């Protein structure tokens, strides 16, 4: 009986202690103790977990390295493929931009018919300034047809085969184009130079020209349509002892970066060489 009372008392006391602790915990009075206890638990858990992970890695890492290497190789291959794709797309975008500009040009000059061609090479001789394009007689190209870009005059078709053509640039030493100065209302002849510059010749001494003046095709001699932009005057060479003054012209087209050109296919060049008197 005494034992029973003693046991009940112990249980009651235990409950009271537990309830007291719970009440203290809920009221926040045990936060210092519980915090330390929690820290201890978390630290212990963390210690056990990190050791377990280390042991697990010790057994599993070799297999993972192989898998990672394989995955790395796959990703590198994918990266290379994507990089190649990026280059290809950048190329396409650049080509699309060039084509869009050419389309705009052809829309703004609807009086002519155009065929677009890609530049695929240059003349093997450094003496000549010719380009090779990927369109030929199968595409309706003929010798003498003018070649332009959206910026201005490029040159003329010099030789044609079925699927390619050779174009003589206006900067070639054998090229000569009849031009007119927009501001001075004066006509002159533009020739190529071995250094790649364009030289404006046969300009009378009394004509006033200034750097920046626009040079356009005049349409004389029948080689090119009129009013195509060729370039701007860069510098003037004027000596009193000469009959004519000369000017260096900066072409509007950068011939070293030509990618796509337009050939004016409905322009019929006129060969006036039989009419030119020979000395």
């Amino acid at each position, binding site marked *: 009986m005494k034992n029973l009372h003693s046991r009940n008392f112990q249980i009651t006391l235990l409950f009271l202690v537990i309830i007291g602790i719970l009440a203290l915990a809920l009221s926040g009075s045990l936060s210092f103790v519980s915090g330390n206890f929690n820290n201890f638990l978390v630290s212990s858990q963390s210690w056990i977990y990190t050791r377990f992970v280390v042991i697990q890695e010790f057994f599993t890492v070799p297999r993972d390295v192989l898998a990672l290497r394989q995955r790395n190789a796959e990703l590198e291959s994918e990266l290379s493929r994507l990089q190649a794709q990026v280059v290809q797309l950048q190329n396409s975008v650049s080509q699309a931009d060039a084509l869009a500009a050419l389309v705009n040009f052809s829309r703004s000059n609807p009086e002519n018919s155009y065929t677009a061609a890609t530049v*695929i*090479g*240059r*003349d*093997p*001789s*450094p*003496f*000549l300034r*010719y380009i*090779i394009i990927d369109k030929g007689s199968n595409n309706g190209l003929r010798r003498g047809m003018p070649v332009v870009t959206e910026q201005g005059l490029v040159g003329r078709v*010099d*030789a044609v085969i079925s699927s390619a053509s*050779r174009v*003589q640039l206006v900067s*070639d*030493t*054998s090229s000569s184009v009849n031009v007119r100065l927009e501001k001075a209302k004066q006509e002159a002849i533009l*020739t190529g*130079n*071995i*250094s*790649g510059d364009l030289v404006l010749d046969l300009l009378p001494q009394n004509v006033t020209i200034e750097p920046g003046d626009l040079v356009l095709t005049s349409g004389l001699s029948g080689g090119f349509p009129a009013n195509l932009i060729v370039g701007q005057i860069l510098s003037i060479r004027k000596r009193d002892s000469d009959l004519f003054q000369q000017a260096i012209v900066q072409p509007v087209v950068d011939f*070293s970066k030509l990618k796509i050109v337009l050939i004016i296919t409905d322009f019929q060049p006129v060969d006036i060489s039989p009419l030119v008197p020979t000395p």
Partner: protein
Amino acid sequence: MKNIIAFPVLALALMIQTSLVSRITLLSGAADLILLILVAWSLQEQVQSSIHWAVLAGLMTAFVSGLPPYVYPLGYLLTVMLSRYVLKQTWQNPILALFSVVFFSTIMIQLLTYLSLVLIGSKTTIGDTLALITLPSLLLNLLLALPVHSFMGDLALWVYPLEDLG
């Protein structure tokens, strides 16, 4: 039959020349890959067909170029003849022979080109030509001569294996 290799090699070289080498310029000069290939090929002792190579290269290049059609065939033929002559005169000194032939054949072809352009009325002056085209082209040709010689040496060994000699 061994001459057939000339067609793909020279066609490929011409494509590389027009699409790549002609774009890499120093002032206005550019290297002449076809010339270097012909020189390197004809300076290989075991090679027996360099004249055919010169004719083929000359015709192919003349077809693509805007120069008068006799310039390249004549220039390349003279180049190969010069190479064979130098090969007979020098003994086991291929590098010196290579540089000498590249030097003289570059000058010769440039002179031939200049004269042909003057004949057709092109306004080119010898001073500008020398400064802007000939000297830069010469430098580029000399720079490219060794790698091309090495490549053509391997090709010559492949086409004319050593056991075929003698």
